[in-house]
């Protein structure tokens, strides 16, 4: 809860506004009681005429207006505070996502991150919009009321000082007991409440196995069990608010008794004072009760805030860029002991290799050996944690991001299609205005133009999220079209394993030959012929570069490669 509080109190202006509005509200509450009691006193006991009390009614109206408007100001500031803090939280989250070195590779986490950005941040809302404003009021208003009560009739003040602490004390005790109980039942509750979703998700299975009939009864039983378990938790919560109401009621009762004694038995105070105190006291206890309920709405944000803090604490490793620019000619790439490590987990490198212009390099190794990580390092999607990549002897870190990515093409196994038209998805390749003619030519070279033109809306067909789906092969060809439009001088290619149609397989081969005429191509290779045709093969095993060289030289000198090829060819002979 403390880190949320810090966030709130960092907004000094709004906190001050809350404090000022709380002071005003406290004063207005006193004023309201004062004028109200004065009217009653004058009319009832002093037999004043209606005309006499008109100014008092005016004063009461003013106090009421002040109370309502300061209350509104508090509510409004709370909302503004919540909005301001949540905007900052989201902005920080987005920045931390963008700088996370794993974002480029770890897609599995994306769903969780979306929910962090939307739901977790929203869950903290109550803390800022309700809890903090109520906290401010609880810091300020009871003391104003208490001061007035002491001034009017000090014994009442003393009674309040003696009884009021029982409320937070009691709340703390009950709250703790409820919490342990709730925690214990949480898991059980989770299963109960998950049951409905579980059955719905399994509906296909249930139907195929002819087991739907009994399920309604299962849902009913589970719902009832869920109800009873929840009621158990709620009962103790209700019991605590019952006790709370009863304690404050008892305190008010004691005070009323004491005031009555002073009024009737000792005649030490006037009706005016007695009535005044009796109006203020319930207001005092109501504030404490309000705080109790606001505390619960604030608590909801704590778990969410821990998730958020976890994300914001995550290691940030932004990729560093410089100002040098590149020409459009394929550069000479050198991997100088380059390596990457994230946390205590996977480590790659050091990798030492030379990739001359127009050459073809292949990265091979078992799955999990770090092939794609190396490709990402070369691409400048991950920061090197050791060594570096030089481009024409200039460290990649000194080159401008724009210039580097301007020369780079990347065809992954699963290219991402953005929500938009096919034309937009191809044109994203070139960082410039493109004509429909250019896009169409690129699509033709990538062998997808026919398919696109067969669609009702052609290149204006919407794809990606909310649009029509493309098959794996068609996505590959869209990625190729992007590369044809961009004309990069370095192409990184994550060769598909299997599952592509023959047409795409052929087009991929032909296109890479075509693109390779004007570019260096570095491939995470899965096809034997791609590997054989490469000028340099980098053989990775568990993050370590075991060998580098051409097919011929590896066959001569590197046994594991020779054996792997032999197994492959043995298979082929079968």
């Amino acid at each position, binding site marked *: 809860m403390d880190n949320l509080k810090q966030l709130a109190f960092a907004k000094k202006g709004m906190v001050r506004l809350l404090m000022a509005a709380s002071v005003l509200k406290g004063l207005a509450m006193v004023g309201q009681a004062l004028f109200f009691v004065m009217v009653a006193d004058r009319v009832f006991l002093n037999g004043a005429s209606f005309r006499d009390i008109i100014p008092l009614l005016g004063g009461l109206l003013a106090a009421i207006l002040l109370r309502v408007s300061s209350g509104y100001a508090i509510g409004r500031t709370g909302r503004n505070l919540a909005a301001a803090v949540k905007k900052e939280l989201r902005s920080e989250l987005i920045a931390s996502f963008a700088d996370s070195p794993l974002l480029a590779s770890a897609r599995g986490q994306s769903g969780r991150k979306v929910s962090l950005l*939307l739901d977790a941040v929203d869950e903290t809302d109550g803390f800022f919009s309700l809890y903090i404003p109520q906290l401010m009021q609880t810091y300020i208003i009871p003391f104003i009321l208490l001061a007035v009560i002491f001034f009017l009739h000090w014994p009442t003040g003393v009674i309040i000082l003696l009884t009021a602490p029982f409320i937070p004390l009691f709340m703390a005790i009950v709250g703790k007991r409820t919490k342990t109980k709730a925690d214990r039942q949480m898991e059980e509750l989770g299963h109960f409440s998950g049951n409905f979703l579980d059955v719905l998700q399994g509906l296909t299975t249930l139907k195929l196995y002819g087991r739907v009939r009994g399920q309604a009864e299962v849902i009913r039983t589970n719902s009832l069990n869920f109800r009873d378990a*929840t*009621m158990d938790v709620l009962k103790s919560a209700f019991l605590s608010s019952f006790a709370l109401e009863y304690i404050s009621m008892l305190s008010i009762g004691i005070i009323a008794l004491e005031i009555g004694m002073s009024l009737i038995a000792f005649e030490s105070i006037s009706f005016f004072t007695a009535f005044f105190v009796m109006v203020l006291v319930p207001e005092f206890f109501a504030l404490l009760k309000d705080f109790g309920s606001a505390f619960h709405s604030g608590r909801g944000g704590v778990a969410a805030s821990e998730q958020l803090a976890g994300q914001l604490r995550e290691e940030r490793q932004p990729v560093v860029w410089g100002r040098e620019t590149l020409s459009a000619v394929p550069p000479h790439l050198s991997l100088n002991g380059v390596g990457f490590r994230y946390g205590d987990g996977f480590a790659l490198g050091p990798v030492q290799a030379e990739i001359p212009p127009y050459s073809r390099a292949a990265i091979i190794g078992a799955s999990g050996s770090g092939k794609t990580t190396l490709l990402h390092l070369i691409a400048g999607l991950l920061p090197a944690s050791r060594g570096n990549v030089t481009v024409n002897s200039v460290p990649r870190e000194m080159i401008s991001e724009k210039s580097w990515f301007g020369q780079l093409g990347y065809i992954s196994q699963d290219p991402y299609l953005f929500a938009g038209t096919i034309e937009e998805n191809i044109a994203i390749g070139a960082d410039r205005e493109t004509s429909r003619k250019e896009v169409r030519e690129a699509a033709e070279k990538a062998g997808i133009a026919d398919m696109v033109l067969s669609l009702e809306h052609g290149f204006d067909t919407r794809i990606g999220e909310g649009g029509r789906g493309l098959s794996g092969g068609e996505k590959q060809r869209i990625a190729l079209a992007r590369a044809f439009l961009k004309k990069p001088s370095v192409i990184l290619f994550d060769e598909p394993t299997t599952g592509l149609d023959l047409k795409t397989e052929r087009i991929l081969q032909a296109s890479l030959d075509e693109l390779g005429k004007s570019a260096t191509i570095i491939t995470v290779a899965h096809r034997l012929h791609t590997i054989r045709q490469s000028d340099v093969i980098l053989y990775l095993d568990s993050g370590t570069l075991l060998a580098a060289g051409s097919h011929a030289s590896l066959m001569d000198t590197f046994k594991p490669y020779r054996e792997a090829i032999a197994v492959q060819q043995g298979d082929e002979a079968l």
Partner: protein
Amino acid sequence: MSELKTMISMTLRERRDITLAILCGFLAGLAGVALLASSGYLISQAALAAQMVILVALGACLKLFGLAAAVSRYGERLFSHRATFTMLGNLRVSFFGKLSPLAPRIFHEYRSGDLLSRIVGDVESLQNLLLRVLYPPVVLLLVFTSTIFFTSFFSAAIAFVLLAGLLLTVVAVPGLFAWRKRKTKPAVRDSRADLSAEAAEFLYGFRDLKIYQQADARKRQLQSFAESYEEEKRKEGLQNTFMQSVNSFIAILTTWTVLALGAYFVAAGELDGLYLAMLVMISLALFENIAPMAVFPSHYEESRQAAARLNQITERPVPETGSGQLPEGAWGLEAETLAYTYPGEERPALRDVSFRISPGTKTAVVGPSGSGKSTLLQVLLGILPADSGTASIGGRKLNSLDPESLWSRMNTVLQHNHFFYGTIRSNLLIADEDAPDEALQEALETVGLGAFSLSQEVGEKGGNLSGGEKQRLAIARAMLKGARLWLLDEPVSSVNAATARSIYARLFRMRPDDTFVIVSHDLTGLEHMDQIIVMENGRIAENGSYAELMEAHGYFYELKQIEKSVFAS
């Protein structure tokens, strides 16, 4: 309101709890009013005549009404929550009853995978329907009318003022804001949807955005979407705060009017001054009860929309199905110019698909991803309705058969097999309730999961099992069902090659006369199949035995060449 009709009638079924809740709420409200009214009256009385008896009465009233208020508030909370949770249970059961005839076809029409969690969320959000929408106005009306009735004995004018306050704070203002909300609500939801979509694009497409130098622009766009979402939320929140303030202002203004009128009547001699404080206290206490109305508009709107979304699903017509019964048997399958296009898609997923699978044979359906293999299987299962052409099983047209009867004759393993929270045993028993433990254990042995204990826990959606374990468990479950036609969709794609081969070998040995249809992207081990159907682009490219296809040097042959050349070090 019409959207909520079913939900309301379902809620009202919990008559006993609701009546008790309303009674308790009514008593709590009245006790609160009585508490303040009596203290106002007694203090006035004490000011006139200093008598000990008044003091005693004051103490007694405070304790009595205070306790009564606290106890009945407790009862109110208890009963209203219990009614709510019972109602949610009924709602789940009734919704399940309406959804199950639509399944599994409906899951294919709603492409978004979150349909089910949305349903669950909507059902959950309806818990506010009773607690915060239906119930507070009823209790308020009861408390107000009886208090107003009481007040009318003292002053008709003051009773009238209270009535006006009631109408404004309980009916007019919440109604007005609920109506306004209905018009403005989409802004928040739309901006949330925008933000969610943009965030997904940014995160899932980050690598491509980076390469194509769009990452910074999209990051800024994401930031601005986040801000406009928050801005909409803020506006909505401010509207709520405003309504709350308006309502409390009207409430307090009513009390002020009561005071001013009362003072006027007292001065004019029309009202005994003794009752002035009491009447004002009544008004104060009465309007303390309207706090729940502050959240009425948002909860009303939320419940209405949740109900509308749920109705949209349950009001769909139940698809007509055949009623023919299929006897037991290792049936063959036949397809004649089958075609199928997914709703909203232009390109057919299947077209002109014809084949014949003889009883007791083994058929593999292979082809690249997106070629229509799984769609074909779904059509054969009767889950997707063919647009044209016919599919038949054992000579009977598929659509003339009762789906339940059809499914009872098939052992199916789909790409996503659901496992329920429970144990291995409870998940296997779905196939055959009466199967003894030995049979279950034997099925596990067959799929190489002999090391599993039957009482081992299975998490939600089988979350504690690996992909390969889930697939093998699904095969074991299908085996236990004991039907003689097998339809398997990529049943071993996450199982290592050697294990997969041995599972197939055991399966074929144990059930030599059953009909098998296996969809697979993997081309190894197809030598033993009687028939291989090769699909491409929704069509059958080739069809024949392994030897025939390899001989033909066609599509299958080339796919096989590619598979062979894939380097696995």
